[in-house]
């Protein structure tokens, strides 16, 4: 059983490593062009020459998925960073200052929680406009509340510990105690959450891409790929099924890894 779990985790890391490699050096995995296709080879099913088949204008779908990795991964990275930085900042402020500041910040967090994630993202997009980065920021804003809650509760927990009291007792100021003791000891839980949010962010970004608010065509963003394949569901199943499976496997792996991070602490 534990061997199974370890194999699963190893596979998850392998998937993530491959996708990161796709994002950094896509040309190592495919020699074809993601943007211009060979019209004569349009709508071919998966074969050795075209692992994932070809689309309506003869572009190799596998090539497009490989080149699309950079959009999804960097988008998820931006989203998680926005959520992590803004959320942790709010949470640490609320947890360490307490009182009115705490109450005000947590009511703000309540508001963020009260609006469904997708609607919140759409509100940000209507504000910032369409595009890859804007979609990523929109998704990131949606995760601020989760980061703020976790980091606040961690800070509150650490602040009650004896060594923090001892540090105050030996004359340390609030900001130095925060930097030396509270922050380092609160971050583990936040890192675990960041890993979990990474998978969620990939899903959310592909959803925005699918709705047409993310990367503009002909960029091979994963959600957009599936949206473009929609018109061919009756005849060319591979155009939607295969990119979608890639998303599922990547998100599943990210979630698996975040679970293992959560367990180790």
């Amino acid at each position, binding site marked *: 059983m534990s061997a199974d779990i370890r194999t699963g985790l190893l596979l998850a890391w392998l998937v993530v490593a491959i996708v990161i490699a796709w994002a950094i050096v896509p040309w190592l995995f495919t020699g074809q062009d993601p943007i211009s296709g060979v019209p004569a080879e349009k709508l071919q099913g998966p074969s050795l020459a075209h692992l994932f088949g070809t689309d309506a204008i003869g572009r190799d779908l596998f090539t497009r998925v490989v080149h699309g990795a950079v959009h999804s991964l960097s988008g998820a990275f931006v989203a998680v960073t926005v959520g992590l930085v803004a959320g942790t900042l709010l949470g640490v402020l609320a947890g360490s200052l307490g009182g009115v500041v705490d109450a005000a910040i947590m009511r703000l967090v309540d508001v963020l929680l009260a*609006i469904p994630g997708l609607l919140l993202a759409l509100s940000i997009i209507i504000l910032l406009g369409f595009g890859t980065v804007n979609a990523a920021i929109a998704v990131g804003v949606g995760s601020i509340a989760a980061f703020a809650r976790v980091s606040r509760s961690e800070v509150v927990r650490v602040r009650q510990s004896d060594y923090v009291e001892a540090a105050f007792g030996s004359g340390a100021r609030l900001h130095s105690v925060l930097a030396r003791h509270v922050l380092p000891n609160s971050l583990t839980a936040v890192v675990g959450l960041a890993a979990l949010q990474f998978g969620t962010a990939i899903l959310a970004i592909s959803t925005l891409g699918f709705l047409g608010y993310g990367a503009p065509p002909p960029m091979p963003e994963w959600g957009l790929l599936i949206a473009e394949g929609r018109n061919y569901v009756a005849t060319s199943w591979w155009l939607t099924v295969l990119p979608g499976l890639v998303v599922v496997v990547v998100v599943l792996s990210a979630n698996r890894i975040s679970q293992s991070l959560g367990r180790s602490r």
Partner: protein
Amino acid sequence: MAYLAHRTAQALIVLAIAFTATFVLLQALPGDAILIKFESPELGLSPEQIADIRASYGADVPPLQQFLHTVAGFVQGDFGYSVQYGTPVHELIGSALPDTLALAGLGFVTAVLLAVALAFLSTLAPFGWLRQALRSLPGLLVSVPVFWLGIVLIQVFSFQLRLVPVIGADPVQALILPVLTLAIPISAPLAQILARSIDEVQLAPFVAVVRAKGAGPARVLWRDVARNALLPAVTIAGVLVGELIGGAVVTETVFGRAGIGRLTEQAVANQDVPVLQAIVILAALVFVVVNLAVDLVYPVLDPRLKRKAVAA
């Protein structure tokens, strides 16, 4: 009673902040939506005419006055006018609501049934490997993009198996796949919580006592375990309703159905701020009300809490 007042006040504060935040953010749009729509040279409107239009939308007064005006409107159920269609927002929402309510209502019921079935099967199924497989199913389902699930369902059930017609489906048939698309991702977290709480309750001492008294496994499960295990699931009702609204946006777009979700998608595409603002506030209102209801109902469902509250 004091508790009720406190929770209601808190809910109202959240709504008020949500409203102010959306108002400030959405009004702060670069070049307001009215100008974007009417300033294009093709329409050939004179600056005076544009000023008239702005006045008719109430966009020519100072922001604070606009704010108070909008607040007064929202409280009376008047959400202003759609910039895209020129019709009152409450009419747009009113005509879109029944379709979405049917979809979301059926989706919610299906999700609960799926989750309960999955949770109980994953503790009852005969073989270890089968239980393990059922246990890991929710983890898989939360990793599936909703829009992709919808497309795959169309592919399998409409084009491969030809069970549900794509064209000329009657209203009931047309609901089957959208409801499944909406329900499956929502059932996953619910099933996870249920399975976990079934495990916990089964280890509780009172279950051991009931077993020792000679109760069969079926009686133990339905009378003693199920009733206690279903409780924690109630707490995520608010989150699930929020996911229903987000899911409706995607599902209605994939299946080309009219409804609140489609309205939302088009509002974003057309920068129709008043429509989006109204939908966001209504969604927040639903979330707050559902959570308030859960908080109030929970002590009734679980008498232990009431006793604790009295003792404390």
